């Protein structure tokens, strides 16, 4: 009996980590965009939805295997992200925060309902891309899909880390995020850097979308709303604007959710996520990894 409870707990941890890695991928996009232009990109969850659909298109219509389909989705969403940024957000670079936020919500609605018009609101099933192989270690079941998901997300996060920390582009990104005007004066083309950030964030969201389609088997045009909000919770939990924070926040949120579901309270799962959000905001608004910034008058 005791061992089966331990098994249960470990099983939930495995499930939580796979779900959490998806949240972390979405949260990274949120956090990067927020870090660089101080905008909550509400459309981010919907870009994930577009990614899921383009992955679905690549697999079922173009008959691509998993990895090329993933890359196809990431590239198409990176383009979409840049287009959205250029059309909707760029004219508002110097507008008030509320105007930018409302535009983001407008873009989000446009993607949701435009998507509904384009692909019909009907739910689509993702084709099985992975064998149904399961590995059992001390009674804890690892599905083949779970492992691929974890590996994919970890690889993407490592790539992101290398890009941000060790490339010239990443250095420029960090500079723009630190002080946009100073970066501009140092000869950095801030507009290109911002577009680049949107491209990377959207590509990560697309990867998350494909993984989500594989994980839950079904996709629909409104699938991005709740994961998008939760990924935002994850980003705030880790400290918005901080890249490792988003990873840790995403994994923590996934773990918390699957533990709550494990206790048989799966209908309360979303409420717990938002409750955590509010508690974090009240206790430490800058997040787990955040530093307190004093406001100068």
């Amino acid at each position, binding site marked *: 009996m005791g061992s089966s409870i331990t098994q249960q707990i470990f099983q939930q941890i495995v499930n939580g980590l796979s779900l959490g890695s998806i949240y972390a991928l979405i949260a990274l996009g949120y956090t990067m965009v927020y870090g660089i232009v101080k905008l909550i990109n509400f459309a981010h969850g919907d870009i994930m939805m577009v990614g899921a659909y383009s992955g679905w298109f690549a697999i079922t219509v173009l008959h691509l295997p998993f990895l090329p389909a993933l890359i196809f989705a990431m590239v198409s969403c990176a383009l979409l992200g840049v287009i959205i940024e250029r059309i909707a957000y760029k004219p508002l670079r110097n507008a008030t925060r509320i105007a930018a936020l409302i535009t983001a919500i407008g873009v989000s609605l446009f993607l949701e309902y435009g998507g509904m018009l384009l692909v019909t609101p009907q739910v689509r099933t993702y084709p099985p891309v992975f064998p149904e192989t399961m590995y059992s270690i001390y009674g804890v079941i690892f599905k083949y899909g779970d492992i691929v998901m974890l590996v994919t997300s970890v690889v993407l996060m490592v790539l992101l880390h290398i890009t941000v920390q060790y490339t010239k582009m990443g250095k420029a990104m960090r500079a723009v995020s630190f002080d946009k005007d100073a970066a501009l004066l140092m000869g950095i083309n801030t507009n290109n850097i911002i577009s680049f950030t949107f491209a990377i964030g959207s590509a990560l969201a697309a990867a998350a979308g494909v993984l989500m389609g594989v994980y839950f088997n079904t996709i629909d045009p409104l699938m991005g709303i709740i994961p998008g909000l939760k990924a935002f919770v994850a980003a705030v939990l880790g400290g918005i604007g901080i890249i490792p924070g988003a990873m840790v926040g995403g994994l923590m949120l996934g773990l918390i959710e699957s533990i709550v579901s494990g206790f048989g309270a799966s209908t309360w799962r979303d*409420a717990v996520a938002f409750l955590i959000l509010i508690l974090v905001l009240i206790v430490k608004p800058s997040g787990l990894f955040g530093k307190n910034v004093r406001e100068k008058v």
Partner: protein
Amino acid sequence: MRNWFNRQNIVALLGIVLLYAVVQGLIVFDIMPPFYKLTLIQICIYIILATSLNLINGITGQFSIGHAGFMAVGAYISAIITAIQHGPLLVGLLGGAIVAALAGFLVGLPTLRLKGDYLAIATLGFGEIVRIIFLNTEYVGGAAGFTLPSKITWTWAFALMAISVVLMKNFVGSTHGRACISIRENEIAAESMGVNTTKYKVMAFTMGAFFAGLAGGIYANYFYIIQPMTFNFLLSFNILVMIVLGGLGSMTGGILGAIVMTLASALLAGVPEWRNIITAVLLVLMMIFRPTGILGTKEFSLSFLGKKGDKNAASKN
């Protein structure tokens, strides 16, 4: 003593009564098709919602996007009072509004320390939590929702709307309203001038929640059925769009936005798949080309009528 009966107020009062009487006449003599009546009552509900959100977002400058949560509290509490406990309608409506105000107070006290985006996201979280709580409460029907008799008439909806708007408008014009505006303009400066910013932020938030709850009660007691899905994030967002469209910080602008959006939504009812897309595109275009909304922070007023009345008031002071 202030002269309440200046020309401006009398004209406004006459206008309100006339508007009410014309519509009531059309309803009594059965000239008005039911769809028009439904739209008019919806407009009343949305005017209350938009004005109350404007009090928080536009006047006090605290960015809240959880208004649907307060509306849900008001709707469910009033539905419980009128349909399960068989209480009178007015008690139900006021009960719902008071509980919503209490929720607003309890949520506002801790969260209003947050600023800008963080406050927005905290209120969004609150709205979702409220929805999930009702979704999981079998007493009020869970996900399937809750049916109740429709008791709200045009008279109720219009009277409650008019009273709410007058109350909120007077609040904005009062000392407290001025304090709230000073918080919007510059919180640090307001605080150093001796404005108790926490008190006024919580006051505006509670008051906004009260009227959102009232609107929720009207909604519940008019539409026969309330479901947790109705009070989702999209509804909060719709209300936000109304006040931004009309002009954030302008009470009359919020009313205008509520009317325009509800009418547009009614006109586009035939093409539901396009409705949200058109709204979204309009919104983005407006943010790019006229981010201040139709009226900006200006108010539409009848002051051009009131010069004589104002002089009277001034001479008596």
